[in-house]
């Protein structure tokens, strides 16, 4: 059966958004192939997945899943891929998906199309398209057998369905003692901080904002206020990260995070090729820069020529007014 198995990641009892997007992509692909989308849940109840595109919902249970383990999760996914004989295995390319799905694919003796932005059917076979060279090119790939792919957050939409799926428990056939790597402790990041790679809106700051420990202090506060006003995550250029002005987890670009939000606002960023590489997959790009010749304006859908000192607070005000009104 050309079924599509989708690993649906849960966090704090709820499916994460990127995982519902993967399930949406999986259900559309399954329809095209004439099969069923099967959700696999580890560490959640799978309750609402029938409404989100799943025709079947498998829920793993056992003492081996009490904490996340890359080798443990890989075994469960590879076992279920074999048991369901899925033609396609999908997961979201979140930090967790990127970690263990590669292990699972290798366990199944398969390759992996990582971080895909498009799935389609060509000549009856599933094809995955993934950005390479930091988005400077796209690679369309096909697998000889089962196609394993992880999907970039925000590149696919969620699905809705009739909720006819029944929950099928699957027992994990190994115990916790056999796991090689298990999370022992989770050190919180900044509380409630949105990850740039997962956010729908990203506001990034570059060297144009200046040193937050000196004359740039107000600029960075203004940037945070803008981000708060529109529910955005704050990103940064590498110049800013290398200067120690922002943590490296905020870096957007070829050697930082790849982002594909619906709105990316670049403030005081010149638009070096390595930066563009990480954000040119954004749906809409806005640039604020005082230099009208800055390369960022070449990729921006909308640009404002001006200083961050002047434009960023005004923009926060205009957004707040628009969201209120």
């Amino acid at each position, binding site marked *: 059966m050309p079924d599509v198995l989708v690993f649906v990641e849960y966090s704090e009892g709820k499916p994460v958004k990127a995982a519902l997007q993967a399930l949406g992509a999986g259900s559309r692909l399954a329809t095209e192939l004439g099969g069923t989308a099967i959700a696999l849940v580890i560490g959640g109840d799978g309750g609402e997945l029938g409404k989100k595109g799943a025709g079947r919902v498998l829920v793993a249970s056992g003492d081996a899943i009490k904490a996340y383990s890359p080798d443990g999760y890989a075994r469960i996914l590879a076992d279920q891929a074999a048991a369901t004989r899925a033609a396609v295995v999908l997961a979201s390319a979140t*930090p967790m998906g990127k970690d263990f799905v590669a292990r699972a694919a290798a366990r199944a003796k398969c390759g*992996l199309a990582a971080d895909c932005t498009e799935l389609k059917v060509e000549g009856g076979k599933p094809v995955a398209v993934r950005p390479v060279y930091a988005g400077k090119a796209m690679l369309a790939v096909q697998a000889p057998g089962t196609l394993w792919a992880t999907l970039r957050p925000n590149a696919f939409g969620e699905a809705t369905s009739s909720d006819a799926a029944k929950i099928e428990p699957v027992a994990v056939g190994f115990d916790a003692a056999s796991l*090689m790597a298990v*999370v022992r402790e989770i050190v919180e990041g900044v509380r409630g901080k949105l990850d740039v790679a997962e956010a729908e809106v990203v506001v990034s700051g570059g060297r144009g904002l200046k040193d937050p420990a000196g004359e740039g202090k107000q600029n960075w506060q203004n940037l945070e206020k803008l981000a708060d006003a529109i529910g955005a995550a704050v990103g940064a250029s590498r110049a800013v990260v290398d200067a120690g002005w922002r943590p490296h987890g905020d870096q957007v670009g070829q050697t930082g995070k790849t982002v594909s939000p619906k709105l990316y606002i670049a403030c005081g960023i010149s638009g070096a090729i*390595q930066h563009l590489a990480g954000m040119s997959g954004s749906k809409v790009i806005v640039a604020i820069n005082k230099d009208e010749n800055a390369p960022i304006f070449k990729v921006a859908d909308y640009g404002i020529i001006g200083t961050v000192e002047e434009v960023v607070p005004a923009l926060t005000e205009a957004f707040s*007014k628009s969201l209120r009104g």
Partner: protein
Amino acid sequence: MEIVVCIRRAPTTDARIKPAADGKNYEPAGINYDISEYDKFAIEAAIQLKEKHTGKVTVLCMGSKEATKEVRTAIAMGCDAAELLVDEAFRDSWATASALAARLKSLPHDIVLFGWNSVDNQSASTGQMVAELLGLPSVSVAVSMEVADGAAQIERLAAGGKREKYYIKLPAVVTCQKGLNKYRSPNMKGIMAAKKTVVAETPANAPADGVAVLRLQPPPPRADGKIVGKGADAVNELVRLLREEAKVI
């Protein structure tokens, strides 16, 4: 300690990538190469482990013969020995991992270090696949690592800026992220050593790709943008456009 660090030769990050006439590879003219950025954090981590625990760092690279340049750079940074698994084609992470794992079966290793992601193929998979093929524990995207008494305490970067802490037994696979360390540049002594080092070359024992390339294509073009205006006067118009034209807020 026997430390192995797997490095990849990749186009530099400022390379202009254009599809070649065959539609499957990129046009090689004018492309410069370097060690894939994150692999430099892996090299640095390897050298620091050697400095602390004594031992030997072996560089392992699958690639074309030209990759001896990148391998020598790793030696110049402070690695001790080098091996090139010669393979001229662009390979996917499955084929690469299989070839590396096949070699590692007879190459002593207490720890095998990788970059968390290559800057060209961007699969972020090769290290974990090698771990699975060798039956070793893996921690990916490491931002801190302490090794003692045949075990390692590692933190990896997880969703939302959280850090997951692992304690694993060696031998193990660790993939390295920026933040783990600051990598050094080659010094004079290293450069001299690199000149004298014999890079062992053996044909790579790589299976067929796990995902085969149908085509390499340019990214979808972006429509021309517009300058909305200058200074704070332009913000109301920008917000209107985002709301009514782009419909993103």
